């Protein structure tokens, strides 16, 4: 019964989306329409129905109701409850239901609380949101029904990919999805503003919290995904330029650019068309990412060609949404005037550099991700990997960071270099000193060298905007900016230090052997079997010591899962403030020794701390902006009240 309720709720939500689209379209016209009144209630109700549907899915997974096909295919009664729930979105149908649920919740939220824009613009925005939503409802209901029943009911489910049975990964996809889908709001606002020709600073202020929110989730999602790959895959890598990773990076790059251009539009009424364009591009990248991950095209272009139903559906949605938005853009962009002008040496100028460079990096990631798929369609297989993305990306990333040293110090509209000369020169000198010192100390790659230098320069300059200002009265959003930029520097420092100074040791070790790696000693004491609810493992009991200090435990495992059968590596991570010792155990060799893999990775944890700092900066900016909006709203309310009183008394 519960699955049928979920399915019915979904159909009702789709019908409401159709109503919302119709009302939005009619109501956004010059003369309005009575149906406009249903738009906001429809959006809110739709959010409730989608939420209900998703709860139904969680319920059948929690109970392991094997009469539901999706549960039988992806769950198992022996799994811990948290992974049963995570199984609800760890598959195609469930994740698409999560997608429409988040999208409906976001649409419901703007319908409920957003009243600052002209009502016509809001109707067009909610109409656009409903249009995008309808496509995904159709996809879900026609080709990916998550509630399909299975007859006869099997005695047991197929399980969940063991790699995914990890608490970090249980929450990784929903985090990313909130980010992906949050950008749909920016998309709808952009389309709504274009349709009703009201691209104003107010539009940017209304859109900005949504972009910030989505961007924070994307940042956390990418950071967590990277850390997951790092400790779960067992070889110490933390970013592979894998298409699935790129799929999450591309919306992030676009959202980062959008965030910065929206702040130019909000503060200075410049970059109007560009901001609209980025709003469209950001969500398009979310959809491209979903297409890449969900269509199966990544495993093989040919496999995709054999069973193209789902892939073609998403591709069609992609084409309709992006094509439609671009068509609106093409016909309306010329009616949006250019906006305020500014000199190249100004805050706006620096932010334009930021936008151009981020767009270039986005273009390269997109090209490098799609290119192998294109050539494979012509039966030419090529690989595009780190040796392409790292240097070609850095060509744009590093100059952007150089501008980041100076940009936040500049004033709006027009400024001179002389005014900010000293802090910039000091930051540059420190960066240069690090460059020379690192180059003299050891033989490291140019990319890592420049990365170390730039991270130091950016870290120093990121707090210069606080100089000479009363720290208590500083807007929270400025704190957010400083901490976000500092976080970027911290992350870059971690990446560069890890690639420059990491040490690796692969060894076949007897019980009792001591291995030296960098400043660490590691001793293998024993290898014993261990077991969990759905796996068995060989566990190494090891002791490790940093520079001859106290001996700490390290217990890496080689795990074997049986539903479905798969081997995984549970690494032992010994964390210090200045890096991590990474220990993995492999197979036993024929002469009875154990293969051990050890890495000393200096400052590697700073990559993820940096990512979290970036997200923290974004959160502070979000809090600051929303608090400012609320203050303004209450001030406006009081003003209106007073005016009413005056009129009443007059």
């Amino acid at each position, binding site marked *: 019964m519960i699955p049928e309720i979920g399915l019915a709720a979904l159909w009702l939500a789709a019908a409401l989306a159709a109503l919302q689209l119709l009302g939005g379209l009619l109501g956004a016209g010059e003369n309005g329409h009575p149906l406009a009144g249903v738009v906001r209630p429809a959006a809110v109700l739709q959010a409730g129905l989608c939420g209900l549907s998703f709860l139904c899915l969680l319920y059948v997974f929690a109970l392991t109701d094997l009469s539901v096909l999706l549960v039988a295919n992806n769950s198992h009664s022996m799994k811990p409850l948290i992974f049963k729930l995570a199984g609800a979105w760890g598959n195609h149908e469930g994740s698409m239901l999560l997608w429409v649920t988040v999208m409906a919740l976001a649409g419901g939220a703007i319908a409920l609380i957003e009243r600052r824009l002209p009502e016509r613009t809001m109707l067009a925005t909610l109409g656009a949101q409903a249009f995008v939503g309808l496509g995904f409802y159709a996809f879900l209901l026609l080709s990916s029904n998550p509630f399909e029943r299975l007859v006869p009911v099997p005695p047991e489910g197929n399980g969940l990919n063991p790699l995914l049975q990890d608490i970090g990964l249980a929450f990784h996809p929903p985090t990313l999805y909130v980010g992906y889908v949050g950008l749909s709001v920016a998309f709808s606002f952009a389309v709504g503003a274009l349709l009703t020709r009201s691209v104003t600073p107010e539009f940017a202020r209304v859109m900005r919290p949504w972009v910030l929110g989505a961007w924070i989730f994307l940042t956390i999602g990418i950071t967590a995904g990277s850390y997951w790959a790092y400790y779960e895959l067992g070889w110490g890598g933390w970013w592979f330029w894998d298409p699935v990773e790129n799929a999450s990076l591309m919306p992030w790059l676009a959202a980062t650019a959008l965030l910065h251009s929206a702040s130019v539009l909000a503060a200075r009424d410049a970059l109007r068309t560009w901001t609209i364009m980025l709003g469209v591009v950001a969500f398009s990248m979310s959809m491209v990412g979903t297409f890449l991950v969900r269509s199966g095209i990544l495993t093989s272009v040919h496999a995709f060609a054999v069973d193209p139903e789902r892939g073609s559906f998403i591709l069609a949605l992609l084409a309709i949404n992006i094509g439609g938005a671009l068509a609106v853009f093409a016909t309306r962009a010329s009616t949006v005037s250019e906006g305020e002008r500014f000199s190249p040496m100004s805050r706006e100028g620096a932010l334009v550099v930021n936008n151009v460079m981020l767009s270039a990096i986005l273009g390269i990631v997109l090209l490098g991700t799609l290119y192998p798929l294109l050539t494979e369609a012509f039966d030419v297989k090529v690989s595009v990997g780190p040796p*392409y993305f790292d240097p070609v990306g850095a060509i744009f990333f590093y100059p952007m960071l150089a501008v980041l040293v100076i940009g936040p110090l500049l004033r709006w509209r027009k400024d001179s270099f002389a005014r900010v000369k000293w802090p910039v020169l000091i930051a540059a000198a420190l960066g240069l000193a690090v460059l020379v010192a690192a180059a003299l100390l050891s033989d490291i790659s140019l990319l890592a060298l420049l990365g170390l230098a730039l991270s130091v320069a950016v870290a120093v300059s990121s707090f210069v905007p606080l100089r000479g200002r009363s720290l208590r009265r500083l807007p929270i959003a400025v704190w957010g900016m400083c901490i976000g930029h500092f976080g970027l520097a911290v992350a870059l420092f971690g990446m560069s230090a890890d690639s420059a100074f990491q040490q690796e040791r692969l060894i076949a070790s007897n019980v009792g052997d001591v291995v030296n790696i960098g400043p660490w000693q590691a001793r293998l004491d024993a290898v014993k*079997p*261990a077991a969990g609810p759905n796996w068995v493992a060989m566990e190494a009991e090891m002791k490790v010591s940093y520079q001859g200090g106290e001996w700490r435990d390290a217990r890496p495992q080689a795990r074997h899962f049986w539903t479905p059968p798969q081997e995984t590596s549970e690494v032992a991570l010994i964390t210090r403030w200045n890096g991590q010792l990474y220990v993995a155990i492999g197979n036993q060799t024929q002469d009875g020794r154990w293969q051990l893999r050890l890495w000393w990775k200096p400052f590697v944890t700073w990559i993820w701390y940096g990512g979290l700092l970036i997200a923290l900066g974004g959160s502070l900016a979000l809090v600051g902006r929303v608090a400012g909006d609320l203050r303004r709203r209450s001030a406006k309310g009081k003003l209106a009240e007073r005016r009413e009183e005056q009129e009443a008394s007059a």
Partner: protein
Amino acid sequence: MRRLVALLALILALPLAVPVLGQDSLPPAPYAYQQLADPALEAKAQDLMITLRCLKCQSQSIADSDAPMAGDMRHQVRTRIAAGEEPEAVRAWLVSRYGDYVSYKPHLSSSTWPLFAIPVIVVLVAGFAIARRMRARK
């Protein structure tokens, strides 16, 4: 009790593991999980291995993969580097054996030139557009 279950499971899994062991004993690949003694040569091999694709995995280099084939390839790379071959010669040998697909390092060829041409064109166009806009303002 858990230990017992684990042991039991291992014993039950043993017959399944035998064919795997049999495979392992075919061509021994000692350098799959063992570094070269000379750190300079090992660094050379490592730099090469991170740019070679594991053909059995998704987007992993042979330097970060558990796949047996990646292990064999690591063994090949390390023995050839130890025998004095240049990294690029080893790469060329692997490419001749497995095709361009095995190498992550992009090189200009009839099938890869757009990867380099498109960014250059985009930069030129963007630069031109910005320059024109800036000039128009003055």
